[in-house]
């Protein structure tokens, strides 16, 4: 029996070494898997964004303030800032992440906020979705890779309409939303932005939506219950931390709001 044990050990050891060696090779790069997925993601992002722009005008003037907010969040959290920010004119209170590291804010969400820190909370949440690769995970889960590849390679307008609808409404699972909330909260704390502003903003939108039943408050209606979220987020806020700073100056914030209001007219 000892001969069989020795031989069994040799076979298992050979298998273990072979598996170890094979898993050390960068197959994703060698087989161009990474670049294919990246191209797909970029292409999807461009096409979905273009279809959004058919219904809403882009407000270029508001980007600078949002960019500095994003820069501060990324810098404080050692994140590579490859995000492409867009502000679209819309009455819908919404913001969402798109494939290809794109983040879209609707103007109504910004004007609904009382200060920049509230918008920074939403931004941190969407940034977490992007950094956790939730966008592509959800898309593949919902539509399948084959559908997405064929939608990009062909000119399937209907396919893009359903992808756009999905991304701007109920794209993420409850677990993903909670993960993005908690990671977003950590981003805010590291950037010395008071996370309570984000929680307050969420509670405010939730109460307006419940009282007035406005269907335009999409950002909240497509996420888990605002009260639940504010509860678990409040529990996670570090009570000992009090040295918070505003993410951008009051002046920059006012300038952005003025730009948005100007566009309204």
């Amino acid at each position, binding site marked *: 029996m000892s001969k069989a044990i020795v031989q069994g050990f040799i076979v298992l050891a050979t298998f273990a070494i*072979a598996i170890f060696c094979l898993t050390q090779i960068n197959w994703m790069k060698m087989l161009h898997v990474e670049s294919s997925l990246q191209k797909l993601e970029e292409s999807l992002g461009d096409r979905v964004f273009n279809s959004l722009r058919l219904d809403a005008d882009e407000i270029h003037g508001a980007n600078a303030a949002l960019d500095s907010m994003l820069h501060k969040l990324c810098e404080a959290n050692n994140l590579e800032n490859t995000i492409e920010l867009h502000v679209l004119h819309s009455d819908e209170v919404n913001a969402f992440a798109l494939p290809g590291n794109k983040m879209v804010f609707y103007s109504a969400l910004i004007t609904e906020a009382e200060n920049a820190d509230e918008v920074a909370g939403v931004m941190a949440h969407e940034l977490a979705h992007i950094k956790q*690769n939730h966008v592509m995970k959800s898309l593949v889960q919902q539509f399948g890779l084959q559908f997405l590849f064929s939608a990009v390679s062909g000119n399937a307008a209907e396919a893009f309409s359903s992808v756009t609808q999905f991304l701007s409404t109920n794209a993420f699972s409850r677990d993903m939303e909670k993960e993005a909330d908690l990671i977003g909260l950590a981003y805010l704390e590291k950037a010395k932005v008071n996370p309570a502003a984000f929680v307050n903003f969420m509670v405010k939108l939730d109460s307006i939506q419940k009282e007035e039943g406005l269907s335009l408050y999409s950002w909240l209606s497509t996420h888990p219950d605002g009260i639940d979220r504010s509860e678990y987020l409040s529990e996670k806020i570090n009570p000992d931390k009090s040295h918070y700073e505003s993410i951008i100056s009051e002046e920059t914030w006012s300038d952005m709001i003025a730009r948005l209001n100007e566009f309204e007219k």
Partner: protein
Amino acid sequence: MKTKEAFAYTPYESELEGASNAYVISLLAVVAGLPIPIFNLLASIIFYFGTRKSTYFVRWHTTQFLLSQLFLFFFNSFGFWWSLSIFLQKNELSNAYIGYLIFLIVVNISEFILTVYSAIQVRKGVHVQWYFFGTLTQQLVKNKS
């Protein structure tokens, strides 16, 4: 991974066919079994129980093949569930997964070739003993006569 050794006695023609079938049956199961690893193992188990009262030579080869299938089953099952978790988006496509998949492909193709070779050789009356599995079978299967 195989050696040709002298068997305890010279098997009859019918025994050669029975022993060779132990390998052939799994080749048929491969058609259905490729995506789901349990099919190959099931075919081997059914054949094993069907030949329990058969001659020493047939039992020996059936057991050797069943042991090898059992061993591979764990590796294939792991790969199968890993693939399923990627398909269901519980896991992501990674270098580790592709490396493991290549390992499985190489091992399964090698086993397939060895199985075809063994089926042919055993049918010719050659006692093919696989490395480790042959040694283990030698310990487990005894000549009752």
